[in-house]
């Protein structure tokens, strides 16, 4: 009956972000919030484990006060309780700050057998939080996991790396960072959505997490963000005769010094 914690991030849906053609700046005004896609797999994994073996899943998120919009969403996906830290510091927090805040929350919340996280967030995809959290909490960590089981106090995980798979065993408590291929998250049913409001959620104040003021100061700041726009020659040959098009393309290859 494992006690699990899933950390998730409430992000802007990058599909709604538009690039301003004039100056390549990003327009997020129409972007809605969403639970980071990769976190869904972590939430699903924890939920499935608990459905099979009993236990409980708590969810935890650190974000700006808009993170409250994520609560019913996350609770409709299986967790029993959601904790959140909604603080302005999240606006500019870098991965270092995020990990320290989450670590502070975990120390306050008590013992979990396994802390699960997604591979990275859909906005910045730093892929750092799992290992950082483990380092701060002095816990063993298994990263890039595509399969896992929890048997008593033992976590058995299979990692998928570029050129091999690796079986790793750790004792709980431990941190596990899962790959998006670990499972296919189910779409919450209507009853799960309606049942979310009956589940508890609790705010954690950042001042109560035992952090120093300088812990919340980001050491990495954004100098600029520009939309990526492909700017290519776009020379397209559309003659009705394929041989003509081929001749022109071959000439282009020669012109670019590629023949």
């Amino acid at each position, binding site marked *: 009956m494992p006690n699990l914690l899933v950390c998730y991030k409430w992000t802007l849906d990058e599909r709604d972000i538009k690039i301003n053609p004039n100056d390549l700046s*990003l327009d997020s005004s129409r972007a809605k919030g969403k639970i980071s896609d990769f976190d869904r797999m972590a939430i699903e994994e924890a939920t499935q484990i608990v459905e099979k073996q009993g236990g409980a899943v708590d969810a935890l998120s650190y974000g700006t006060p808009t993170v409250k919009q994520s609560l019913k969403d996350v609770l409709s996906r299986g967790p029993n309780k959601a904790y959140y830290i909604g603080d302005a510091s999240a606006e500019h927090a870098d991965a270092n700050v995020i990990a320290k805040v989450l670590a502070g929350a975990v120390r306050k919340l008590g013992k979990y057998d396994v802390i699960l996280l997604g591979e990275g967030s859909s906005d910045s995809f730093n892929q750092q939080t799992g290992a950082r959290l483990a380092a701060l909490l002095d816990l063993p960590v298994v990263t890039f996991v595509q399969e896992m089981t929890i048997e008593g106090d033992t976590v058995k995980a299979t990692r998928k790396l570029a050129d091999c798979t690796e079986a790793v065993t750790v004792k709980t408590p431990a941190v596990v960072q899962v790959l998006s291929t670990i499972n296919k998250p189910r779409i919450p049913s209507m009853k799960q959505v309606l049942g979310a409001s009956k589940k508890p959620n609790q705010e954690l104040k950042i001042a109560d997490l035992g952090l120093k003021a300088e812990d919340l100061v980001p050491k990495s700041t954004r100098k600029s963000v520009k939309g990526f726009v492909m700017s290519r020659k776009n020379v397209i040959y559309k003659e009705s005769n394929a041989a003509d098009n081929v001749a022109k393309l071959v000439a282009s290859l020669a012109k670019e010094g590629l023949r």
Partner: protein
Amino acid sequence: MAGVFVFSEDSAIGKQLLTPALELKKSLGQPLVALATREADAKEYATLGADRVIVLKSEASPEVLAPAIANLVAKEQASVVLIGGTLRGKHVASYIAAKLDAPMTTDAKTLTIADGKLETTRVLYAGLAVAEELSSLPAVATVPARTFLPPAAAATAGKIESVEVTPDTRAVVSNVTPIASEGVDITTASRLVSVGRGFRKKEDLKLADDLAAALKGEVSCSRGVAEDDHWLPIERYIGISGQTVKPEIYFAVGLSGQVQHMVGCRESKFIFAVNNDEHAPIFEAADYGIVGDLYEVLPLLTAALKN
């Protein structure tokens, strides 16, 4: 604080990292220290510009050595730690960053020192945008493979030393199973013919093979061809969850050019396309293209190139 540190469990990447590290060393006026797990690699690093090379005496996997490496760079008061951007590297780098209470940039494409800080550029929002960031020192960064070329041989060789390192025994690694590889590494090909769902049968990929041969390149594909049709192995597919390539020529055939695919090849020097749908997004991303039936165009093109 002293030292620009470099580490990758993959020595090919380790050597590539020396190039940006040498620039940082110049800007900061601090020694370049390379960490290696094998003597042979250490010798190479020493000839390519590392002032010091520290051999970590352990057969354990890099993740298991992460706490020990973190202690080492902390003791050395490293200013910058560059780690090869493999998955293993990202694990190690994140661990180190936490222990150093340092900022970390994942998949940095450029690295310079500006106003005493590490300035980096990297991709955001699944490829939608590029961010320039400034990180106070000490800073950690992972750099993707093949972002840089290894440096030329240095005038003087660096000093090699070795240290005992204590592996973290809490994670027990067993059963390392290599993923069967086909042998072709499309990430190193300078010319690629990339196939999409415009091909009707697996046998028709021969047209792409012939074109690739005429171009002296390899064949790659979009996600569907590998994951859904299984006409080509997974390591040949290019896209946001597949490989990223930067060949001289990327020749997309019968491939529509969706964003999730293009993010894996958009840094190619030249992009060519053949597609019978003139509205296919690939044409917006191409330097040169032909609107036409690939079954007609490819044989003609291959023949023309052979002449």
